[in-house]
């Protein structure tokens, strides 16, 4: 479910459909994702899930899956 929500956020940012977005989708030009898109996603995720993502942690996000796991872990702590 979290994956769906993150995919939707990313799709909005990219202006594309969310069908092609999976956990393996990487934040690289091959997937049509620029660094600024990734940064926008971080901001959107913070807003949607009421989290604070530290930038040293954000620097380690390589894929959509990383973001999803981060969110799950943060929610688990609550």
């Amino acid at each position: 479910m979290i994956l769906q929500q993150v995919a939707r956020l990313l799709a909005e940012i990219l202006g594309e459909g969310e069908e092609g977005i999976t956990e393996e989708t990487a934040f690289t030009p091959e997937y049509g994702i620029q660094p600024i898109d990734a940064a926008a996603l971080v901001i959107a995720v913070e807003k949607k899930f009421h989290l604070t993502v530290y930038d040293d942690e954000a620097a380690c996000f390589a894929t959509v899956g990383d973001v999803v796991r981060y969110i799950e872990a943060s929610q688990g702590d609550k």
Partner: protein
Amino acid sequence: MQNYQQELQREQAYFEEILALVDARLEKKRASGRQGRGGLLTSQKEMWDGAAHSSADFDAAVELSQYQEELALRTASYLTDVEEVQTLERMRDSPYFARVDFRESGEAEAAGIYIGRRSLLDESTHAVRIFDWRAPIAGLFYRYERGPAQYEAPGGTIRGDVSLKRQYEIKRGRFEYFFDANVEITDEFLKKLLAKNAPSKMVSIVETIQKDQDAIIRDSQNELLMVQGAAGSGKTSVALHRVAYLMYRGLSSGLSSHQIVILSPSALFSDYISGVLPELGEKNVQTLAFEDLCGRVLGGDLPQMQTKHQLFEELITCADAGEKALLKAGVEFKASQTFIIMLRRLAVRYQRRLVPFCDVLYHRRQLFDRQLLKERLLRRDARIPAAAGLQQIETMILREVREENKSRLEELERFARRYPEHAYEVPAFARMLSIRENRLLLARIRSFTRIDYAALYRRMFHDKNLFYALAKGLTLPENAEEIRRRTDALPAPAPPRYEDALALTFLKAVLAGCDAYGDIRQVVVDEAQDCCPIHFEILNLLFPRAKYTVLGDLHQTIEKEAPPAFYEDVRHILNKKTSTLLTLSKSFRCTRQIIAFSGRFLEGPSGQECFGRDGAPPEIFSAAGRDLLDRQLAAFIRELGAQGYRSVCVLCKSLAAAEELYERMGASAGAALMDGTRPAALSGICIAPIYMAKGLEFDAALVYDADDVHYHTADDKKLLYIAATRALHRLALFYVGKPSRFLSGGGQEDAL
């Protein structure tokens, strides 16, 4: 004669009673099992039908979790019933195997103590009808002949007299016969047992545990128990029965199956012994090879290491004597106490001088000074390993950075707003810059807070000054420089050599600690003669709270000479409060003839006793050419099959040789190749390298290419010893050309 008949009637009556008891219990458990299963199925159905499936509804989620809890309880209770049913079924097959009549001092009458694999309590009378072989009172059977005897009960030592020792043959729920045991008769019984075909997996030996074996099994005094056992003396059996015993005692002392670890030489061996504990009604215990330990410690840091078997293969097939000597010297050096000291010194030096601390700058100011960071590491609590100390520093630095990050982000946004031509949104752009900065900063921080163990190890050999500084005051082998250069020249990254992987494991365990096995209370090390000081040092680090049982045979080392002080070294390294070395010198596996023959492959008198079973004398076959030899071999194998021998192993010096032989005639002879990749097919015919067959046994062992070219060094001689002692009943050697000098029982070995 009449007496026997009377006794037989009495025993059969007792047997019927016991069966009735077991049957009643079995029926009860089966009924409760059926009920339990029914209840389980009903609960499961209720859960799926009744509970909502989406966990978005909180109430529904609570209801679901309650169902799950009930389900878990019912499942656990059902499984316990299932296990008990299995135990009772096994008991019904063979409820007991021995009886001891013991009269306690001061009592008028002797009590008959029946001994079986498991205890059986008569619930109506609360009398113990059968004692578990591991119970203290059952020790009377293993340790004493008729006469004065004693055992340790919780209340103290109970003394008395054994007036009868009796053994039973009960199979598949049928009482076959019994006999009164004295030494001669039990030996006959054992001989009969040993004359059978070798089982394809190791089986338990409860009925026939010998006195000196029993002493090892039941030892509870020593924190370190070492056993030097001749080939075929039952070492591994004894070790496994000891584990079963410890688990039995553990019921009261709190030792459970997941607190025990068996270190086995290979996965193949682990598979071979995997039937014993379940046969004794115990859950299997974790069996690991050393390579598994290394993998656990090193984790994803390193690619698959060279295994010990691969190292053996490399050494054995090395054609160049000089190269081989160097390889061996390298392996020996890196496993030695000297090298361990160097590694410890490296760990200390790393913390004091080699960590590449740097100043941490962020948002136009210096957050941390490198000297400060270094001091923080050095002044930490000594109990915290270096890697954890560095991790704490990383956490501390990041905390500061995150604090600073807020104002840094504001500054970046101000910067972004100054350039309205940017198509990007300001917050996202600023955030992107901040994330990029953090990425670079994190890499810089981790360059000194994360330890690259492989790089540190390589550095030790690459930096000549460092190497010799670490060796100051120590005695290095004469080809130390050669070893250093060769290690330096190894490509990286690459699968590490066995000895380098061990050294890395040790280094990482020292710098990072290892929590994975903190629970382990008992470690059993089998085939310990192939272990070196570094193995035991690693064990010390990984299993700090464990007691040890170490078993080996110094005559069966491969490609190395076991130092005469081997067990002393082990004692010194493991450093336990109480320790002892026991010996099992009687070999039960081979026939008298095979033991006598294999003696020629030993240095000096072996002190090896033989149980004294007779068999055919070992045979030696020679042929003029390879084809002829192969045909002779095939014919011999066929003949063995006709004579009823089921497991036959053709032993070659190396895996390469075994593969070659298998190519030529494996299929036609119906043989399997033992190459370590598949579970071994131990019944039937297999072709194996000697080092892989170590610890296993077969009805017949056939040594292939037993010529002088293959076997002429001292190490080769040992291989022949290992090969010869794999056989229970038949041994044969085959060669072309000149026979190995060791076959004749004489001959000087070559240096290498």
